């Protein structure tokens, strides 16, 4: 019997995850980070959201994602490890 992963335990909004709203209104749990990131001598941050792959389709790249009332555009979606999770690179709008 194959192992069936239940990733939702890692994405409880009562713990480390937050609710994020995809363009179109779908709400998904993500683990959000926005560490400081300086580029070309200018301060900034590197916002990214880790999510369950099945909850954020590849077609979401280029669309908006609202996290903590801030609107971002999904710039890139890359698989993590076995591909069950993805990292979304975000651009602040």
């Amino acid at each position, binding site marked *: 019997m194959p192992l069936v992963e239940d990733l939702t335990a890692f994405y409880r909004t009562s713990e480390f995850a937050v609710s994020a709203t995809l363009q179109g209104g779908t709400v998904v749990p993500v683990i959000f980070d926005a560490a400081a*990131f300086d580029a*070309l*001598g*200018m301060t*900034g941050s*590197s916002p990214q959201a880790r999510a369950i792959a099945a909850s954020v389709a590849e077609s979401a790249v280029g669309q908006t994602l609202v996290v903590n009332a801030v609107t*971002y555009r999904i710039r890139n979606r890359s698989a993590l490890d076995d591909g069950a999770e993805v990292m979304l690179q975000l651009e*602040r709008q």
Partner: protein
Amino acid sequence: MADHVREQIAVAFVNALTGLATTGANVWRERDTDERPLREAELPALLVDDDGEPAEISTLGTARILTRRMRLRVTAHVRALTGAGTSLNQILKEVEIAVAGISSAAFKYSSITDVSAREASEGADRPVMRQSFNFDVLYMTAHNAPDVPL
């Protein structure tokens, strides 16, 4: 004793470049942006850096005269979701007009010599871009009076 002529020139540049329409008061001299990066409220910005100076002897004798070409690098920094390249060209226009308008006895003329390749990054929360505009500033002094422009 007055400042060295190259200091007089640098001050004239900074004064001329302060208050431009796009970059406003965001003008710095010799700021190490690796250690002290420009913050969001400080953008778009101009950095003015001394980029060296070749000099040559123009007359011989005890009061020989030096012809000197001070190089000044003006680097524009922009952060924008769209249109950063257009903004850089607008800044270049404003910078060139401002430099052409400098009225100073410190130098004979200044001329833009090179617009460097643009650097861009989309690694941060918003795209950023920077580009340097390089100027040559011709001035002359006696070898023993570098604070007196001729």
